[in-house]
Protein backbone atom coordinates (compact mmCIF):
# COMPACT_ATOMS: atom_id res chain seq x y z
CA UNK A 1 0.00 0.00 0.00
CA UNK A 2 1.35 3.43 -0.92
CA UNK A 3 1.86 5.90 1.91
CA UNK A 4 -0.58 8.77 2.30
CA UNK A 5 2.21 11.32 2.56
CA UNK A 6 -0.26 14.19 2.23
CA UNK A 7 -1.02 13.64 5.92
CA UNK A 8 2.46 14.74 6.95
CA UNK A 9 3.61 18.17 8.06
CA UNK A 10 7.28 18.87 7.42
CA UNK A 11 9.66 21.57 8.63
CA UNK A 12 12.71 22.43 6.52
CA UNK A 13 15.46 24.49 8.14
CA UNK A 14 18.26 25.52 5.78
CA UNK A 15 20.08 28.76 5.07
CA UNK A 16 20.55 27.89 1.39
CA UNK A 17 17.55 29.00 -0.68
CA UNK A 18 18.37 26.55 -3.50
CA UNK A 19 18.40 23.57 -1.17
CA UNK A 20 15.14 24.74 0.40
CA UNK A 21 13.56 24.99 -3.04
CA UNK A 22 14.94 21.60 -4.06
CA UNK A 23 13.60 19.88 -0.94
CA UNK A 24 10.23 21.53 -1.25
CA UNK A 25 10.00 20.53 -4.93
CA UNK A 26 10.80 16.88 -4.19
CA UNK A 27 8.50 16.63 -1.18
CA UNK A 28 5.66 18.35 -3.07
CA UNK A 29 6.12 15.93 -5.95
CA UNK A 30 5.60 12.92 -3.67
CA UNK A 31 2.41 14.45 -2.34
CA UNK A 32 3.48 16.37 0.78
CA UNK A 33 1.74 19.73 0.82
CA UNK A 34 2.19 20.90 4.41
CA UNK A 35 5.74 22.17 4.31
CA UNK A 36 7.05 25.07 6.33
CA UNK A 37 10.44 26.61 5.78
CA UNK A 38 12.86 28.50 7.99
CA UNK A 39 16.16 29.93 6.89
CA UNK A 40 17.94 29.68 10.23
CA UNK A 41 17.91 27.51 13.34
CA UNK A 42 16.46 30.11 15.69
CA UNK A 43 13.45 30.79 13.45
CA UNK A 44 13.27 27.04 12.83
CA UNK A 45 12.93 26.26 16.53
CA UNK A 46 10.31 28.98 16.96
CA UNK A 47 8.31 27.47 14.08
CA UNK A 48 8.76 23.98 15.55
CA UNK A 49 7.26 25.16 18.85
CA UNK A 50 4.21 26.64 17.12
CA UNK A 51 2.95 23.63 15.15
CA UNK A 52 2.97 19.87 15.31
CA UNK A 53 5.57 18.63 12.81
CA UNK A 54 6.07 15.01 11.79
CA UNK A 55 9.60 15.31 10.40
CA UNK A 56 12.28 18.00 10.52
CA UNK A 57 14.92 18.41 7.82
CA UNK A 58 17.86 20.55 8.86
CA UNK A 59 21.15 21.70 7.39
CA UNK A 60 24.30 21.14 9.45
CA UNK A 61 26.10 24.45 9.15
CA UNK A 62 23.98 27.52 9.81
CA UNK A 63 24.20 30.72 11.78
CA UNK A 64 23.51 31.89 14.43
CA UNK A 65 22.96 28.31 15.60
CA UNK A 66 23.86 25.11 13.77
CA UNK A 67 21.63 22.19 12.86
CA UNK A 68 23.26 20.34 15.74
CA UNK A 69 22.16 23.08 18.15
CA UNK A 70 18.67 23.00 16.66
CA UNK A 71 18.51 19.25 17.25
CA UNK A 72 19.67 19.79 20.85
CA UNK A 73 16.83 22.28 21.33
CA UNK A 74 14.26 19.93 19.81
CA UNK A 75 15.43 17.04 21.98
CA UNK A 76 16.08 18.75 25.30
CA UNK A 77 14.46 22.18 25.57
CA UNK A 78 11.51 22.40 27.94
CA UNK A 79 9.76 24.39 25.21
CA UNK A 80 10.01 21.54 22.69
CA UNK A 81 6.52 20.19 21.92
CA UNK A 82 7.83 16.92 20.47
CA UNK A 83 11.32 15.77 21.50
CA UNK A 84 10.77 12.47 19.66
CA UNK A 85 10.32 13.99 16.19
CA UNK A 86 12.57 12.43 13.52
CA UNK A 87 15.34 14.85 12.54
CA UNK A 88 17.01 14.29 9.17
CA UNK A 89 20.25 16.22 8.81
CA UNK A 90 21.42 17.12 5.31
CA UNK A 91 25.02 18.16 4.87
CA UNK A 92 27.99 18.10 2.55
CA UNK A 93 30.12 17.67 5.69
CA UNK A 94 29.70 13.92 5.78
CA UNK A 95 32.99 12.72 7.22
CA UNK A 96 32.79 10.20 10.03
CA UNK A 97 33.47 12.76 12.76
CA UNK A 98 30.54 14.96 11.68
CA UNK A 99 28.17 12.02 11.31
CA UNK A 100 29.19 10.82 14.76
CA UNK A 101 28.67 14.31 16.17
CA UNK A 102 25.20 14.44 14.60
CA UNK A 103 24.31 11.06 16.09
CA UNK A 104 25.60 12.12 19.49
CA UNK A 105 23.24 15.09 19.45
CA UNK A 106 20.13 13.08 18.61
CA UNK A 107 19.93 13.34 14.83
CA UNK A 108 17.81 10.46 13.50
CA UNK A 109 19.17 10.16 9.97
CA UNK A 110 22.06 11.77 8.10
CA UNK A 111 21.78 12.48 4.38
CA UNK A 112 25.00 13.46 2.63
CA UNK A 113 24.98 16.11 -0.07
CA UNK A 114 24.84 15.84 -3.00
CA UNK A 115 21.79 13.64 -2.52
CA UNK A 116 19.46 12.02 -5.03
CA UNK A 117 15.69 11.68 -4.94
CA UNK A 118 16.17 7.96 -4.21
CA UNK A 119 18.45 8.58 -1.21
CA UNK A 120 16.03 11.15 0.19
CA UNK A 121 13.11 8.74 -0.21
CA UNK A 122 15.13 6.00 1.53
CA UNK A 123 15.63 8.24 4.56
CA UNK A 124 11.94 9.11 4.58
CA UNK A 125 10.95 5.45 4.48
CA UNK A 126 13.47 4.64 7.16
CA UNK A 127 12.06 7.09 9.70
CA UNK A 128 8.56 5.80 8.95
CA UNK A 129 9.31 2.07 8.94
CA UNK A 130 12.23 1.71 11.34
CA UNK A 131 11.89 4.18 14.19
CA UNK A 132 14.53 3.58 16.82
CA UNK A 133 13.77 3.55 20.53
CA UNK A 134 14.93 6.57 22.47
CA UNK A 135 17.63 6.51 25.09
CA UNK A 136 17.96 8.83 28.04
CA UNK A 137 21.24 8.99 29.94
CA UNK A 138 22.71 11.74 32.09
CA UNK A 139 24.29 13.32 29.04
CA UNK A 140 22.22 12.15 26.06
CA UNK A 141 18.63 12.05 24.95
CA UNK A 142 17.77 10.87 21.47
CA UNK A 143 17.38 7.86 19.20
CA UNK A 144 19.34 4.78 20.20
CA UNK A 145 22.70 5.15 18.49
CA UNK A 146 23.12 1.40 18.18
CA UNK A 147 21.41 0.49 14.93
CA UNK A 148 21.32 -3.24 15.48
CA UNK A 149 20.07 -4.76 18.67
CA UNK A 150 21.56 -8.14 19.45
CA UNK A 151 19.51 -9.91 22.13
CA UNK A 152 22.25 -12.53 22.49
CA UNK A 153 25.02 -10.01 23.14
CA UNK A 154 26.74 -10.84 26.41
CA UNK A 155 29.80 -8.59 26.19
CA UNK A 156 30.52 -5.46 28.17
CA UNK A 157 28.16 -2.46 28.08
CA UNK A 158 29.40 -0.16 25.32
CA UNK A 159 27.36 2.88 26.21
CA UNK A 160 30.15 4.30 28.39
CA UNK A 161 32.65 4.15 25.55
CA UNK A 162 30.13 5.83 23.26
CA UNK A 163 29.89 8.70 25.70
CA UNK A 164 33.66 8.96 25.89
CA UNK A 165 33.75 9.28 22.10
CA UNK A 166 31.82 12.55 22.37
CA UNK A 167 34.74 14.10 24.27
CA UNK A 168 37.14 12.71 21.70
CA UNK A 169 35.13 14.34 18.91
CA UNK A 170 35.35 17.70 20.67
CA UNK A 171 39.10 17.40 21.08
CA UNK A 172 39.48 16.78 17.34
CA UNK A 173 37.97 20.16 16.47
CA UNK A 174 40.33 22.92 15.40
CA UNK A 175 40.62 26.09 17.47
CA UNK A 176 38.62 27.96 14.81
CA UNK A 177 35.85 25.36 14.95
CA UNK A 178 35.83 25.49 18.75
CA UNK A 179 35.51 29.31 18.67
CA UNK A 180 32.58 29.04 16.22
CA UNK A 181 31.04 26.38 18.44
CA UNK A 182 31.41 28.58 21.55
CA UNK A 183 29.67 31.51 19.79
CA UNK A 184 26.94 29.20 18.61
CA UNK A 185 26.58 27.78 22.14
CA UNK A 186 26.07 31.24 23.62
CA UNK A 187 23.16 31.85 21.24
CA UNK A 188 21.83 28.36 21.96
CA UNK A 189 21.89 28.91 25.72
CA UNK A 190 20.12 32.21 25.31
CA UNK A 191 17.29 30.58 23.33
CA UNK A 192 17.04 27.56 25.63
CA UNK A 193 17.00 29.80 28.71
CA UNK A 194 14.36 32.29 27.51
Amino acid sequence: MAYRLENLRILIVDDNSHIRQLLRTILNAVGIRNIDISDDGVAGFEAFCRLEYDIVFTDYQMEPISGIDLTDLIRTSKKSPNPYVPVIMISAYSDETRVQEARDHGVTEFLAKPFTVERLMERLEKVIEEPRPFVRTETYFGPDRRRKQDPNYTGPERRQSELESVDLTMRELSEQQRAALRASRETFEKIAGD
Partner: protein
Amino acid sequence: MADDGHSNGAYQMITPPNLLKAKVGGSDGPSGIDLDAIQQAASAVESLADEFEERVSLEIAMLMKLSHDLDETPDTAGKVGKRARRVGHEVGGQGATYGFDLLSDIGLSLTRYVDELDGRKRMSGEVLRAHADAMRAIIKNDIRGDGGVVGSELLESLEQMVDRMI
Protein backbone atom coordinates in the same frame (compact mmCIF):
# COMPACT_ATOMS: atom_id res chain seq x y z
CA MET B 1 4.73 5.41 25.33
CA ALA B 2 6.41 2.15 26.29
CA ASP B 3 9.25 1.97 28.73
CA ASP B 4 11.21 -1.15 27.86
CA GLY B 5 12.22 -1.63 31.44
CA HIS B 6 15.86 -0.98 30.66
CA SER B 7 16.02 1.66 33.34
CA ASN B 8 18.80 0.90 35.74
CA GLY B 9 19.86 4.40 36.70
CA ALA B 10 22.50 4.56 33.99
CA TYR B 11 20.09 4.81 31.09
CA GLN B 12 16.45 4.50 30.18
CA MET B 13 15.01 3.07 26.96
CA ILE B 14 11.78 4.55 25.69
CA THR B 15 9.79 3.26 22.72
CA PRO B 16 7.43 5.95 21.45
CA PRO B 17 4.41 4.71 19.45
CA ASN B 18 4.96 4.90 15.69
CA LEU B 19 2.60 7.79 15.01
CA LEU B 20 4.27 8.48 11.69
CA LYS B 21 3.42 5.06 10.33
CA ALA B 22 -0.13 5.40 11.59
CA LYS B 23 -0.45 8.75 9.87
CA VAL B 24 0.75 7.63 6.44
CA GLY B 25 -1.12 4.36 6.35
CA GLY B 26 -0.84 2.55 9.56
CA SER B 27 -1.46 -1.10 8.93
CA ASP B 28 1.29 -3.66 9.12
CA GLY B 29 2.53 -5.23 5.95
CA PRO B 30 4.28 -4.02 2.86
CA SER B 31 3.95 -0.34 2.18
CA GLY B 32 6.11 2.46 0.91
CA ILE B 33 6.37 5.54 -1.20
CA ASP B 34 4.51 5.21 -4.48
CA LEU B 35 6.99 4.55 -7.31
CA ASP B 36 5.12 6.89 -9.63
CA ALA B 37 5.48 9.62 -7.03
CA ILE B 38 9.24 9.00 -6.86
CA GLN B 39 9.40 9.25 -10.63
CA GLN B 40 7.47 12.53 -10.50
CA ALA B 41 9.96 13.83 -7.93
CA ALA B 42 12.86 12.88 -10.21
CA SER B 43 11.18 14.72 -13.10
CA ALA B 44 10.61 17.75 -10.87
CA VAL B 45 14.32 17.81 -10.01
CA GLU B 46 15.19 17.52 -13.69
CA SER B 47 13.05 20.60 -14.36
CA LEU B 48 15.33 22.54 -11.99
CA ALA B 49 18.50 21.39 -13.78
CA ASP B 50 18.56 24.28 -16.28
CA GLU B 51 18.44 26.79 -13.47
CA PHE B 52 21.22 24.88 -11.71
CA GLU B 53 23.40 25.03 -14.82
CA GLU B 54 22.89 28.80 -14.98
CA ARG B 55 23.93 29.11 -11.36
CA VAL B 56 27.01 26.99 -11.97
CA SER B 57 27.98 29.27 -14.86
CA LEU B 58 27.85 32.22 -12.48
CA GLU B 59 29.91 30.30 -9.91
CA ILE B 60 32.51 29.52 -12.59
CA ALA B 61 32.72 33.21 -13.52
CA MET B 62 33.17 34.02 -9.84
CA LEU B 63 35.94 31.43 -9.53
CA MET B 64 37.78 32.89 -12.53
CA LYS B 65 37.50 36.37 -11.06
CA LEU B 66 38.84 35.09 -7.74
CA SER B 67 41.82 33.48 -9.47
CA HIS B 68 42.67 36.79 -11.17
CA ASP B 69 42.22 38.69 -7.90
CA LEU B 70 44.65 36.27 -6.36
CA ASP B 71 47.21 36.79 -9.12
CA GLU B 72 46.98 40.56 -8.83
CA THR B 73 46.81 40.85 -5.04
CA PRO B 74 48.15 37.72 -3.35
CA ASP B 75 47.46 39.14 0.11
CA THR B 76 43.72 38.62 -0.52
CA ALA B 77 44.27 34.85 -0.28
CA GLY B 78 42.26 34.49 2.93
CA LYS B 79 39.19 36.15 1.48
CA VAL B 80 39.61 34.45 -1.89
CA GLY B 81 39.99 31.06 -0.22
CA LYS B 82 36.78 31.53 1.71
CA ARG B 83 34.80 32.46 -1.41
CA ALA B 84 36.41 29.77 -3.56
CA ARG B 85 35.50 27.23 -0.90
CA ARG B 86 31.90 28.41 -1.02
CA VAL B 87 31.88 27.86 -4.79
CA GLY B 88 33.24 24.33 -4.34
CA HIS B 89 30.70 23.66 -1.59
CA GLU B 90 27.75 24.86 -3.71
CA VAL B 91 28.76 23.02 -6.86
CA GLY B 92 29.98 19.92 -5.04
CA GLY B 93 26.97 19.75 -2.75
CA GLN B 94 24.38 19.89 -5.54
CA GLY B 95 25.88 18.67 -8.84
CA ALA B 96 25.09 14.98 -8.46
CA THR B 97 21.52 15.79 -7.40
CA TYR B 98 20.99 17.08 -10.94
CA GLY B 99 22.90 14.23 -12.56
CA PHE B 100 26.29 15.99 -12.71
CA ASP B 101 28.28 13.58 -10.53
CA LEU B 102 31.63 14.57 -12.03
CA LEU B 103 30.86 18.23 -11.40
CA SER B 104 30.22 17.39 -7.75
CA ASP B 105 33.56 15.59 -7.50
CA ILE B 106 35.35 18.59 -8.97
CA GLY B 107 33.58 20.95 -6.57
CA LEU B 108 34.63 18.75 -3.66
CA SER B 109 38.20 18.67 -4.99
CA LEU B 110 38.19 22.47 -4.84
CA THR B 111 36.97 22.53 -1.25
CA ARG B 112 39.66 19.98 -0.38
CA TYR B 113 42.31 22.25 -1.86
CA VAL B 114 41.18 25.20 0.27
CA ASP B 115 40.71 23.08 3.40
CA GLU B 116 44.01 21.22 3.19
CA LEU B 117 46.29 23.97 1.89
CA ASP B 118 49.36 24.16 4.09
CA GLY B 119 49.25 27.51 5.91
CA ARG B 120 52.85 28.18 4.87
CA LYS B 121 52.02 27.87 1.16
CA ARG B 122 50.54 30.55 -1.04
CA MET B 123 47.12 29.85 -2.56
CA SER B 124 47.41 29.26 -6.29
CA GLY B 125 45.26 31.01 -8.88
CA GLU B 126 46.27 28.23 -11.28
CA VAL B 127 44.49 25.60 -9.16
CA LEU B 128 41.33 27.71 -9.02
CA ARG B 129 41.42 28.22 -12.80
CA ALA B 130 41.95 24.50 -13.46
CA HIS B 131 38.83 23.71 -11.44
CA ALA B 132 36.86 26.48 -13.17
CA ASP B 133 37.93 25.19 -16.60
CA ALA B 134 36.91 21.64 -15.74
CA MET B 135 33.52 22.81 -14.46
CA ARG B 136 32.99 24.88 -17.60
CA ALA B 137 33.80 21.90 -19.86
CA ILE B 138 31.27 19.74 -18.02
CA ILE B 139 28.47 22.29 -18.31
CA LYS B 140 29.30 23.18 -21.92
CA ASN B 141 29.32 19.52 -23.00
CA ASP B 142 26.46 18.52 -20.69
CA ILE B 143 28.52 15.71 -19.18
CA ARG B 144 26.23 13.75 -16.85
CA GLY B 145 27.23 11.01 -14.47
CA ASP B 146 30.91 10.36 -13.80
CA GLY B 147 31.98 11.23 -17.35
CA GLY B 148 33.42 7.78 -18.05
CA VAL B 149 37.13 7.34 -18.73
CA VAL B 150 37.67 10.96 -19.72
CA GLY B 151 35.86 12.06 -16.56
CA SER B 152 38.08 9.91 -14.34
CA GLU B 153 41.22 11.19 -16.05
CA LEU B 154 40.10 14.78 -15.63
CA LEU B 155 39.31 14.26 -11.97
CA GLU B 156 42.54 12.39 -11.35
CA SER B 157 44.62 15.15 -12.94
CA LEU B 158 42.92 17.74 -10.71
CA GLU B 159 43.41 15.63 -7.63
CA GLN B 160 47.08 15.15 -8.44
CA MET B 161 47.41 18.90 -8.91
CA VAL B 162 45.76 19.51 -5.53
CA ASP B 163 48.06 16.93 -3.90
CA ARG B 164 51.10 18.72 -5.33
CA MET B 165 49.98 22.18 -4.33
CA ILE B 166 48.63 21.72 -0.81
